[in-house]
């Protein structure tokens, strides 16, 4: 179920259309530059496979529910990012036109959320580094899981941003995020399972399809696009974090207090707000940047420094990750 036109404003829809259209043109040029005629029927058939695979449900181990493959990440693994993006765009277009699944003006948004993020962010930045060049079943499955989860989280966040910026739905940003992200975490796990299952099967049945797929034209590309992508992803995530932080900046609370005479605006006393507030209380690890129930002064400082340590560890992990990506590959001794 993709985004509908009804919740989108022309400005947001038009912008995302422009972005997706530009990317489509670029990918079309890249695919033509590959000069691989076999790619044309393969892309069509992969799109048809995706449609069919969406109708095959599997039960998720551990829970009682079932799910199906989305396919963006799998396509990127098999065809390489530019071709995979075009296939995803075509599948979404057919879904929008024939099944009314996703609006026509929202197609730009849907192509961006479901195409760009798996093919150009999740695949090169997460799957490839984790799975590595030599195929190993467990690693590839884990890589697929991680890449699928992150890709879907980013996609869901994109939907939230686009809907909120359009201003037609009254759903506030925070509630929408709290609603979408957990649901898409579950969907991401499902996608990870499905992709991992297929990648694992291919590893045994036809490993050459996975390694240096000739259709993917193992591009000896420089690290620059990877770095740029990483910077963009980091900026997006950083922006998300700072957006969260800025929904309750002290300045706002201060100005609201000045205007209304109260410390914080009263939320309507209804069940939805109460439920969401409770959910927020439960999920906030470090509300207001300190450990909860810190009353005495030393405890309060401990709370603040805990937040600092947490943030510091996160920054360290990010730095390590960037370092891992930048590491020089040990040259293979020539066989001469």
């Amino acid at each position, binding site marked *: 179920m993709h985004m509908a036109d009804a919740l989108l404003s022309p400005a947001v829809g038009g912008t995302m259309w422009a972005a997706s259209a530009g990317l489509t043109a670029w990918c*079309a040029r890249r695919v033509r530059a590959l000069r691989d005629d076999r790619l044309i029927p393969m892309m069509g058939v992969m799109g048809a496979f995706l449609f069919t695979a969406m109708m095959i449900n599997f039960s998720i181990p551990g829970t009682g529910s079932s799910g199906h493959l989305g396919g963006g990440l799998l396509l990127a693994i098999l065809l390489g990012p530019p071709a995979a993006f075009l296939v995803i765009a075509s599948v979404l277009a057919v879904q929008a036109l024939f099944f009314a699944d996703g609006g026509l003006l929202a197609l730009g948004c849907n192509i961006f959320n479901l195409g760009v993020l798996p093919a150009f962010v999740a695949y090169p930045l997460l799957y490839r580094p984790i799975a590595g060049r030599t195929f190993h079943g467990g690693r590839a499955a884990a890589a697929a899981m991680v890449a699928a989860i992150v890709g879907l989280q980013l996609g869901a966040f994109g939907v939230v941003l686009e809907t909120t910026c359009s201003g037609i739905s009254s759903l506030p940003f925070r509630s929408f995020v709290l609603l979408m992200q957990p649901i898409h975490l579950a969907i991401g796990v499902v996608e990870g399972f499905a992709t991992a299952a297929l990648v694992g099967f291919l590893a045994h049945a036809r490993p050459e399809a996975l390694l240096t797929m000739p259709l993917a034209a193992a591009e000896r590309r420089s690290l620059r696009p990877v770095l740029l992508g990483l910077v963009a992803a980091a900026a997006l995530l950083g922006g998300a974090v700072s957006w969260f932080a800025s929904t309750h900046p002290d300045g706002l609370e201060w100005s609201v207090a000045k205007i209304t005479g109260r410390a914080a605006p009263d939320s309507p006393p209804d069940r939805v707000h109460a439920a969401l507030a409770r959910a927020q209380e439960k999920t906030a690890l470090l509300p207001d940047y300190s450990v909860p129930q810190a009353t005495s002064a030393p405890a309060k400082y401990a709370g603040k420094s805990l937040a600092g340590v947490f943030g510091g560890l996160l920054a360290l992990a990010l730095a390590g990750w960037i370092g891992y990506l930048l590491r020089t590959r040990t040259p293979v001794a020539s066989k001469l």
Partner: protein
Amino acid sequence: MAVLAHYFEVGRMDELGRMQSPIHRLDARTLIVTTAIFLVVVMSFPRYEISALMPLFLYPCVLIARAGLPVGYLLRKVALAAPFAIFVGLFNPLLDRHPVVQIGTLALSGGWISFASILLRFFLTVTAALVLVCCTGIQRLCAGLEQLGLPRVLAVQILFLYRYFFVIGDEGARMLRSVAIRSADAQALPWRIYGTLAGHLLLRAMDRANRIYRAMLARGFDGEVRVLRPTTPGWRDAVFAAGWTLYFVAARHWNLAELAGRVLDCRL
């Protein structure tokens, strides 16, 4: 079986697109551009607008009537597509509770009005998209889009996807049927079996693609896919596009429903 149902759907819409009618005889580009303008106008209304959206129903109604499309079928497809919009739109009445309108003893909040507006927009946009496909058919639609600037690779991709959807769907339906027979019709497969089943389908699809490629080579494929040139636009297309665009702009600028209401009021 779900797979079969789905691809009969797709086939039916293309069949409708190949009918003959005054609308079907228009150039595909005319319909694409007019529908795009329609969508932009509908989406540009402010949140609480209801009455001004009503005159815009004229466009899908006239097209369905002139093209001879089956109304029940289209309504069912719109209903099937409704869940997402309803789900998100339903938050509006819950969050926006300031009463705005009094009808007898019932006080409607702003949230309900914006929810109704969302539903109306949804209905208009989805119907317009379905009507577009049912009036052009996938071949002419892709050719028209390509003439309007869609990259050739993507237009070809959509056509191939459409063509092989039935082929791969057939394979998938056969595999699902064999699994159903061997598993007492279980609805969801265990994970490992899914991997094998879907994996085999994937392998068959890839092998199919390679066979198709060799068949194309044997028939002289040289890398360039040639798409049939569609009709050239005539005066009818210009009249259609200009007329509807004027109507959309007028409906956006003035609230035609309100004007009509006032006229009726004066008469009565």
